[in-house]
Each structure stands twice: as C-alpha cells, then as structure tokens.
C-alpha cells in the first residue's frame, strides 16, 4: 500500500482536498489571544489567516476618556512582566509635552525600580526559554529569584505585578529607610548565584545541542548593536 493511502486525514470522497480548521483562540498554544483559520491538507498547512483582535483592549480610546494621571494604571497592562517600563514611557511622554523636569531622587528611584523589573522580566524570559528547549530545572530557580524582586518592588510601591508606581513628574512613593540595604543584600545574593550562566550551561547539557539557540535568527550586520 502506498504511503499516502495510510495518512489518516485522507479518506473517502474528496481525499487530498484542503480542510479549513479554526485554531484558537481557545487552543492551548494560543491561550486566548489569537485565532488562525488554517487551510490544511493532511499534515501540511498551506495557509494560516490570523485574527488578532482578541487582545485589543481599546487602551488608546480609554486614554481619550480618562485624565493624564488617571491613565497610568492602564499602562501597566501593556506588558505585565515589565510594567514599570510602560509606566516610565508614558510618564516621559507626558513630561515631554508639559516640559516638566523630574527631580533627581525620583529619577534614581525610577531607574532602580525599572532595572529591578528588567531583571525580573529577563529571568522569566531565560527560564521559560530554557524550559522550551527541554531544561525544566532553571525555570523554578529563575522564578525564585523573581519572587525576591517582587518582594522588593512590593515594599517599594505596594504591588507585585502592575506597579502603577511612576507618576508624571516623579514617583508615587519614596523608599523606606531600610529598603536600600535590603535591595543591596538581595543584589549580593543574586550576583553570587550567577543564574544566567547556570541557565546557559543547562541549555548545553540537558540536550547536548547547544546549537539550537546559537544558530537561530540570522540578521544583517547592521542590526547588531
């Protein structure tokens, strides 16, 4: 028997014809944000038409309806793993329009809170990437370190995910007296752990094909920074 007669999706009338399938938005890999209308012939996908409106929350329209300071919490939702940067970007834009200068202490706090958030976001990225290529161990380690950052940011602004911390012309709260020593203590601990190197090592060891990431995404030379 020829191989194409054994393929399950080709049977009866119209064998070998194109099938149109809906993939998502409830498909596990699309987790609610996207739908593909897939044109498939057996296992071969000929065409996929994406529908992307599921995640559109009309944030730009909301922006027309609320006040300038009132829009700050909405910016948190743009990227919930790095909400501080959306805060910062929005605050910078409005400050530019107003011609407002941010006082130095607030600038320091902005930079510190953003950098902590950046580390937290990268930890998720590195951990989940390691998991995607088959190494499960780094992810909980990364999450554990991220928890500490969440604690620090919670002590700073009261929230662990959607911070709503930056304000137009400054920040919402100053830091408590014992916050800076706490942050330093965590940094010492974190730098000792050398987590990113551990993740990179695990990548090579777990599957023995470190090339999987190394060879991906060729770019023109001008893209490289």
């Amino acid at each position: 028997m020829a191989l194409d007669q054994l393929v399950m999706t080709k049977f009866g009338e119209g064998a070998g014809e194109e099938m149109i399938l809906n993939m998502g938005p409830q498909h596990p890999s699309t987790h609610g944000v996207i739908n593909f209308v897939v044109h498939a012939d057996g296992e071969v996908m000929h065409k996929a038409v994406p529908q992307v409106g599921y995640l559109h929350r009309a944030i730009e329209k909301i922006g027309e309806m609320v006040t300038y300071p009132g829009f700050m919490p909405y910016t948190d939702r743009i990227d919930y793993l790095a909400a501080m940067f959306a805060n910062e970007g929005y605050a910078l834009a409005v400050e530019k329009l107003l011609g407002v200068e941010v006082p130095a202490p607030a600038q320091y706090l902005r930079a510190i809170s953003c950098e902590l958030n950046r580390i937290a976001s990268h930890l998720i990225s590195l951990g989940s990437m390691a998991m995607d290529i088959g190494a499960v161990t780094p992810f909980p380690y990364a999450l554990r370190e991220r928890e500490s950052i969440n604690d620090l940011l919670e002590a700073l602004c009261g929230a662990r995910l959607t911070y709503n911390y930056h304000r137009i012309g400054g920040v919402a709260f100053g830091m408590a007296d014992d916050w800076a020593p706490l942050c330093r203590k965590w940094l010492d601990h974190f730098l000792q752990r050398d987590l990113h190197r551990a993740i990179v090592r695990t990548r090579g060891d777990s599957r023995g094909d470190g090339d999987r990431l190394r060879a991906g995404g060729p770019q023109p030379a001008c893209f490289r920074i």
Partner: protein
Amino acid sequence: MTALSFEQVHQKLSARFGDAIGPIQPAKKDAFCTFAAARLVEICRFLKAEPDLWFDFLEDLTATDHPKQNLIKVVYHFYSYRHRHLFIAKVEVNRQDPEVDTVESVWKAANWMEREVFDLFGVRFKGHSDMRRVLLPDDWVGSPLRKDYSEAGGYRDISNVRDNPLDLYLTMDRQLKAEQATPEIPADAKLAADAKLPAAEKAPAKSGA
C-alpha cells in the same frame, strides 16, 4: 554608518522632491514635516533606497484626527538600522473621503499598520492587498478613534452598559437590614395574615421576601 540629523534628511528630500516636502514644523516637541499625498510612494522608495538615508524600518504608521481642520493626518515614523537615525512625516488627507496610497510595496510591515488605521480611523489605502479590519470585527460600524465617534450602544445584542455594581450591593444590603429588623413571624400567623389581604397587596409583599 553616519547618522543624519532631521534637518539633513529634510534637506536631501527637499533637494530631490521640492514642493512635495513641507517645511520642518517645530511641533510642540518632536520635529516633523509633511509629504504631498500624491508623491508619497515615490518619496518612501527614495527614503529606503538612498544609501545615505537607508530607512529600512517603518517604525510606526498611525493617524491623528483633526475635525476642526477637516483633516486626518497619517503619521509615518521611519528608522534606519544602518545609520541609526529617524524621521517623522505626516500626510494630510480629507476627513470626509480619506484615501492614501499604500506603502506596502516599500515596507511590508505597512500591511497590518495600514489595516489598523483603516480599522480605527476609516482611512482607505489605495492599492493595499488586503484592506480588511484588523482588530475589530468585520461588521463593526464606525471608526472608533475619530473624535466624533459615539458608541452604538452595543454590538450584536451585547450591551456595553451595565448597572453600577454598587447599586446592586446597596439594594442587597438594604434588604438584608430590613429582614433583620422585622421580627420573625411564625409560619401559621403569616399564612393567616396573607389570607386577609387583597390579592393586589400580596404580590409586592411576596417579592420583597
């Protein structure tokens, strides 16, 4: 790799296209200039192909609505990865019948961004390969980001108004307090009292309980 300033890029464009390039406008903060709608694609091709400019990245394509001037301004942000410089241009179109040429042939990224502008501002892009709404459903009415847009009061029997949840809570609270305030009447006595009342008065008493 030499980054050009906004003025230098503007100078180059003016030398080549003359009147089609508007003057640099010191807007509130970021400088921009206008392009003549008729020569947009030509100018964009030049922006991308000229070695000194090399704007290989269409960073953003959006629009702003100006009802008083009867204009919609389509805004283009260009960026060059090779030279690390950027340029901002606007194309003004009539608000009643807005139509611009597509720059999809220059930057493929324009496809979805033009669809978004079409979706939310109602600007049509001439020559676009797939002019459908991208975020909203195909049968949506109106262009939501226009200043004079008013909500239609729902979509396909899905209402966009709801009762204030606080009102519901307060009603429940009041009911609970009223129930707690009335002393419990034995079931027999309640039946007897109900029997004496006329039918019209019985109904509200029942729904209250």
